[in-house]
C-alpha cells in the first residue's frame, strides 16, 4: 500500500552531531541497533543486488547519485552506491535522520535550509540540492537504513517515484532476510555438525575404560593417541575379570570414522565382554563377535561393518601368567622378554571379523614370565610412515622395542609415546596401546635371616 502523504521535512537538527536523547528514545534506539547488529554479521560487500538497487533508484529519479546505507549507532555504512555520491557528514546526517523518522524523507532544496546551505557538498562540488530516502525496515518495524537519492537540482519528489523508492527499500530488506536465513542455516548446520562430533568423541571416550583394574601380580597400562581432534577413530581396548582368577583383555580397531565408528565400537566392546562371560575361549569369543557383526549387517545397504581384534585370557601360573591369544586380522602382539628380546605372539592366519564367509580365527598360547612384557597396538602405529617414507611395520616396531631393552607396562607406553611423537606427521591414524607386564622378581638376600630374627 502506498502512503499518500510523504513526510516532507527540512533538516531539523545539525547533521552528524549527537543530540541529547531521552531514555525512552534510547530504548527504542537500542532495539534498532540490536536489529542492525543482527544483519551486520552478514557479508553485504559482495552485493550485486544492492548495486542494482542503487542504480535503479538513480534511474527512477533521473538523478546522478543514489546509495543504500545502513545506520549504525554513530556511523552510516554505505552498502552500495551509484555515482557515487561524495562522503559527507551532511549526507550521513540525512540518512540517520531518515532512519529516525521511519517514513519517506524528502528535502526539496538543501540550499534553502540554513544548516545545510553552508555545507561544502551543497555550496561547492557537486552541489547537491535534492535528497530523498525510503527506509529499510525489518518485519518487526526496526529501521536499519535507507535507500537514498541525491540530485544536483532542487525539485519535488513525485508520488510514483517515492513509491518506487519504498519498493526498492523493501527489496533490500527481502535480500537481507534471505541472506540472514542462509547465514543462520549455515550456522545451525555447523553447530549440529560440531555437536555430533562432540557427541562421538564423548561416546568414544566412554568406550575406553577410565582406569584399568588392578590385576594381582600384573602391571597394566593403556593409552589412546588420537591423530585428529576433529575426527573420531574406532580403536578400543579393555581389561576385565573373568571367572576365578582369570582375566580377559582385548584391543582392536573398527572400520570407519566418526559417529558410525563410535557406535560400532560400542557394539564390538559389549559383545566381546558378553561373549567372554558365555565362553572365554578366545577363539570362541571372536567367532561370537563375528556372528553378531554379520547379523548386524544382514540385509542392510550400508557397507559391511567389520573390525580387527586381539582377544586374550590371562591365567596366573607360578611366577607369571599363561596367555591364550586369538586374533582376527590384527597386527601381531609383541612380547618383550626379560632379557630384552622381542618376539611376536601371533597365531598365523586370523582374518577380519564380521565381513567374511567362514572366517578363520587363529589362537596361540604363550607364557609371560617375571620381567616379561606384552604390547598390543592398533595399525595406526605400524602403518605410520618413517622419515624415509616407508611403513614402520612390525619389523620397525620390533627393532625399536629391542633397542629399548627389558621393560615394564608403563615404560612400554612411554617408549611407544616417544616413538609416535618422533614419527610426527608420519602417523595418519589413531593408535590405541595396551601393555601388560609381570614385575621382575626382586630378590632380598637378607630376607631369610630377617625372618629368623
Amino acid at each position, binding site marked *: 500500500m502506498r502512503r499518500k502523504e510523504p513526510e516532507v521535512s527540512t533538516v531539523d537538527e545539525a547533521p552528524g552531531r549527537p543530540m541529547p536523547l531521552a531514555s525512552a528514545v534510547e530504548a527504542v534506539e537500542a532495539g534498532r541497533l540490536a536489529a542492525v547488529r543482527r544483519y551486520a554479521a552478514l557479508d553485504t560487500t559482495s552485493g550485486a543486488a544492492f548495486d542494482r538497487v542503487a542504480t535503479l533508484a538513480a534511474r527512477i529519479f533521473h538523478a546522478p547519485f543514489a546509495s543504500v546505507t545502513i545506520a549504525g549507532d554513530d556511523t552510516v555504512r554505505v552498502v552500495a552506491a551509484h555515482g557515487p555520491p561524495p562522503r559527507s557528514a551532511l549526507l550521513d546526517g540525512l540518512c540517520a535522520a531518515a532512519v529516525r523518522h521511519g517514513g519517506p524523507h524528502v528535502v526539496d532544496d538543501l540550499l534553502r535550509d540554513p544548516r545545510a546551505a553552508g555545507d561544502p557538498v551543497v555550496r561547492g562540488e557537486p552541489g547537491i540540492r535534492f535528497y530523498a530516502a525510503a527506509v529499510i525496515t525489518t518485519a518487526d518495524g526496526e529501521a536499519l537504513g535507507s535507500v537514498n537519492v541525491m540530485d544536483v537540482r532542487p525539485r519535488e519528489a513525485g508520488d510514483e517515484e517515492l513509491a518506487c523508492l519504498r519498493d526498492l527499500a523493501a527489496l533490500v530488506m527481502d535480500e537481507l532476510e534471505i541472506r540472514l536465513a542462509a547465514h543462520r542455516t549455515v550456522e545451525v548446520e555447523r553447530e549440529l555438525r560440531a555437536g555430533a562430533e562432540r557427541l562421538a568423541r564423548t561416546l568414544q571416550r566412554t568406550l575406553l575404560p577410565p582406569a584399568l583394574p588392578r590385576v594381582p601380580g600384573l602391571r597394566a597400562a593403556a593409552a589412546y593417541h588420537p591423530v585428529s581432534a576433529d575426527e573420531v577413530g574406532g580403536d578400543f581396548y579393555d581389561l576385565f575379570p573373568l571367572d576365578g582368577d582369570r582375566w580377559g583383555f582385548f584391543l582392536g580397531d573398527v*572400520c*570407519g570414522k566418526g559417529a558410525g565408528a563410535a557406535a560400532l565400537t560400542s557394539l564390538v566392546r559389549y559383545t566381546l565382554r558378553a561373549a567372554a562371560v558365555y565362553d572365554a575361549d578366545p577363539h570362541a569369543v571372536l567367532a561370537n563377535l563375528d556372528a553378531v557383526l554379520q547379523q548386524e549387517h544382514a540385509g542392510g545397504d550400508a*557397507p559391511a561393518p*567389520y573390525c580387527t581384534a586381539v582377544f586374550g585370557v590371562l591365567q596366573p601360573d607360578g611366577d607369571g601368567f599363561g596367555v591364550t591369544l586369538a586374533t582376527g586380522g590384527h597386527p601381531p602382539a609383541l612380547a618383550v622378554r626379560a632379557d630384552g628380546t622381542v618376539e611376536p605372539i601371533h597365531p598365523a592366519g586370523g*582374518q*577380519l571379523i564380521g*565381513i567374511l564367509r567362514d572366517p578363520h580365527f587363529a589362537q596361540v598360547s604363550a607364557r609371560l614370565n617375571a620381567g616379561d612384557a606384552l604390547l598390543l597396538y592398533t595399525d595406526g602405529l605400524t602403518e605410520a610412515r618413517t622419515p624415509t617414507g616407508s611403513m614402520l611395520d612390525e619389523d620397525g616396531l620390533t627393532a625399536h622395542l629391542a633397542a629399548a631393552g627389558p621393560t615394564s607396562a608403563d615404560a612400554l607406553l612411554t617408549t611407544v609415546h616417544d616413538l609416535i611423537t618422533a614419527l610426527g606427521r608420519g602417523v*595418519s591414524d589413531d593408535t590405541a596401546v595396551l601393555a601388560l607386564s609381570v614385575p621382575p622378581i626382586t630378590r632380598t638376600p637378607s630376607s631369610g635371616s630377617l625372618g629368623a630374627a
Partner: protein
Amino acid sequence: MPHENNLTVALQPHVSGPRLLVVAGDLDHHTTPHLRRALEEIEFGPGADLVIDLSGLTFCDSTGIATLVAAHQRANDARGALLLAGLDQDIARVFQIMGLDRLLAFYDSPEEAVRALSG
C-alpha cells in the same frame, strides 16, 4: 597424511580371457563408491572372470577393503574368479595382516593373473 590422489577406474574388455579393471589412485570412503558402482556392473559366472590391476593404487582404507571383499564373494557365488594384481608392497602387507591373503589371490602383474586363469 592427506590422501589427495583421485581414483580412476577403467574397464578393459578382452576378446578372449578375463576382463581387466584398472584401478589407480586412493581408495577411501570418498572414492570407493566409484569402484563399487563399476564392480556392480560386472557380471560374474563360470569363465566370466575379472582381474583387478591395482598397481596404480596408492592408498586403500577399510571401505575399499570391504568393497573388494564384497566383489570377491559375489564372484565366488557365481562361480567366477576375481584376481588382484600388482598390489603395492605396503598394501599387500596390510591385506596379509588382515588375513585376506587366504581369501583373495594376489599376483605380481595382470599378465601373471591372466596366465593363472588360463593355466
